[in-house]
């Protein structure tokens, strides 16, 4: 099956989604958020379509999803498989709707009390096209932490996945995504929709490392006094294209958004940080910050950094915006080398110092060590 040749007529039972897709059209190389990703060869390829069917779930200490199917879950986690769920009716990404259309069922989990949930996604099929969706309903005032990891052993495959997260008022969701890929011929589209209720918070950390083609599209809606922090680290090498795009909408007043992207690009690697932070008219007194910083380790690497703001209200509490791209600081590098530290190690020290701010915010020593190990391995 070629994703580009999707026959919408076959999905008449999901009428709303089909209608939405008809009006949006299929994504093309001209679609704004895919402009720098090279979507065409990925969608035109012929894959074996393997929609995941729910099966037996083993008890375990984490949620494990293998090729879109829940294989393992902690006891007490109430998992439903719903053929139809309510979808975000204003997502900017076609693939959000396509994944909802093609996934036979959405994995839905209600979070009724504070919890931490480690999730492992395993991608094991070769030459496959697999769509799946996960939905979390986080109840009022509940603190929910997700630590997501990816294991990729699949080649020549395309996966569509994504989270729909609804955070009720005063809920707190923290999602840490450790997305390591080391297979060049592997494509992953994450298309996410997060609705952050009144006075709720959504904190996101993403670490994209490797040499595959992955893109994550976030539509985040903030209601009154909601707050959102998004921290992205990209380390792309060889022919990798690793990207995050977003539409963050302030719909309620006094909401806060802080975005940081720290990008390290090597070889012919490409990073993408592209999107819109939109403050709607009634959403007065917003505080919004966007910052993207990039280090190019060599010529030939390329960063697309296009964070933008659209503000439709006169009253803004705070807005700041910055994007820089450069090489490693030569003087700093020399200083370290003059003290006997080898060139590669000196570079690594500077790269890690560049990420220090994000690691400090993350406050997870284990993840930092993991990252360093991966970084060293990936050199």
């Amino acid at each position, binding site marked *: 099956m070629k994703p580009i040749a999707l026959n919408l007529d076959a999905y008449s039972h999901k009428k709303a989604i089909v209608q939405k897709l008809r009006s949006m059209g299929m994504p093309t190389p001209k679609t704004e958020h895919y402009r720098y990703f090279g979507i065409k060869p990925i969608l035109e390829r012929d894959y074996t379509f393997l929609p995941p069917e729910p099966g037996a779930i083993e008890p375990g200490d984490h949620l494990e999803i293998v090729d879109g199917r829940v294989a393992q879950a902690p006891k007490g986690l109430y998992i439903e498989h719903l053929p139809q769920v309510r979808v975000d009716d204003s997502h900017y990404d076609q693939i959000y709707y396509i994944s909802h259309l093609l996934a036979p069922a959405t994995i839905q989990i209600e979070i009724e009390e504070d919890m931490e949930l480690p999730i492992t996604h395993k991608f094991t099929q070769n030459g496959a096209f697999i769509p799946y969706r996960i939905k979390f309903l986080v109840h009022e005032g509940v603190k929910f932490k997700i630590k997501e990891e990816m294991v990729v052993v699949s080649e020549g495959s395309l996966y569509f996945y994504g989270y729909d997260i609804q955070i009720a008022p005063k809920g707190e969701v923290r999602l840490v995504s450790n997305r390591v890929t080391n297979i060049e011929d592997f494509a992953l589209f994450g298309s996410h929709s997060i609705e952050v209720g009144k006075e709720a918070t959504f904190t996101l950390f993403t670490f994209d490392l490797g040499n595959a083609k992955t893109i994550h599209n976030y539509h985040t809606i903030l209601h009154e006094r909601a707050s959102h922090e998004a921290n992205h680290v990209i380390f792309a090498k060889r022919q990798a294209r690793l990207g995050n795009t977003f539409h963050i909408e302030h719909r309620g007043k006094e909401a806060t958004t802080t975005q940081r992207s720290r990008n390290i690009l090597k070889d012919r690697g490409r990073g993408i940080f592209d999107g819109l932070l939109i403050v709607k008219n009634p959403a007065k007194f917003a505080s919004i910050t966007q910052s993207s910083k990039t280090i190019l380790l060599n010529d030939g690497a390329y960063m697309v950094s296009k964070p933008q703001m659209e503000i439709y209200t006169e009253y803004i509490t705070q807005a700041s915006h910055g994007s820089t791209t450069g090489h490693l600081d030569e003087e700093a590098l020399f200083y370290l080398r*003059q003290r006997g530290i080898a060139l590669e190690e000196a570079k690594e020290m500077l790269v890690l*110092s560049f990420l220090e701010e994000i690691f400090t915010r993350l406050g997870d020593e284990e993840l930092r060590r993991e990252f360093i190990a991966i970084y060293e391995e990936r050199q």
Partner: protein
Amino acid sequence: MKKIMEIKDLHASINNKEILKGIDLDLYEGKVHAIMGPNGAGKSTLSKTIVGHPDVEVTQGEILYKGKNIIDMEPEERALEGIFMAFQHPVEIPGVNNAYFLRTALNAKRKHLGLPPLNAAEFLRLLKAKLKELGMKEEMIHRSLNEGFSGGEKKLNEILQMEILEPDFVILDEIDSGLDIDALKRVSDAVNKMRDGKRTFMIITHYRKILDYIEPDFVHILKDGKVLKTGGIELVDALEREGYKVFGES
């Protein structure tokens, strides 16, 4: 007297502009060499050439260190062979912890010498003793490298690194500028304590004061990319009286 370094007919350029125009200079093991000269004479360029700064291109001549030409050696190899430079303008490196940096540097050196690495606790003990001697605040080692340090604090931090790394050949590029009177005394004490008859110092300065504390064995006057004169402390006296014109043109 044994030569630790011989600089022969050294020509070097920065951005295709010749700055060093034929330097000949012998530096002796265990001695203190003071280098003086007007602004722009090429003193810092000479130091940068010795430590292998990538901006400097050597176009002619050689630098023999412990009998070996080091011109083609990487900066870190030269450092591991015992050459240390205290920078005229130490770099601020946000996000690199000072103590972590210094331990990495020390362990690189220990590895080079075939010694086992020091762990964090052992290292901290060593560090604390040195900090106290230098009159540095302990919190400075837990901060980012040189970030937000005052001018004098940066200089003290260079000396701290020198003490920890115990190099054989030390270049101090205007270590005295920006230091208050007490700090200058402590830095001088630290240097004097490290004068063990083997370690060589090259002290670049504009002022006599530091040379009252650290008595040089030789004084060299550098001007317009060449060594104009070599002598003893009497050269400094002449300089203080009459300025650089006393040495005439090269």
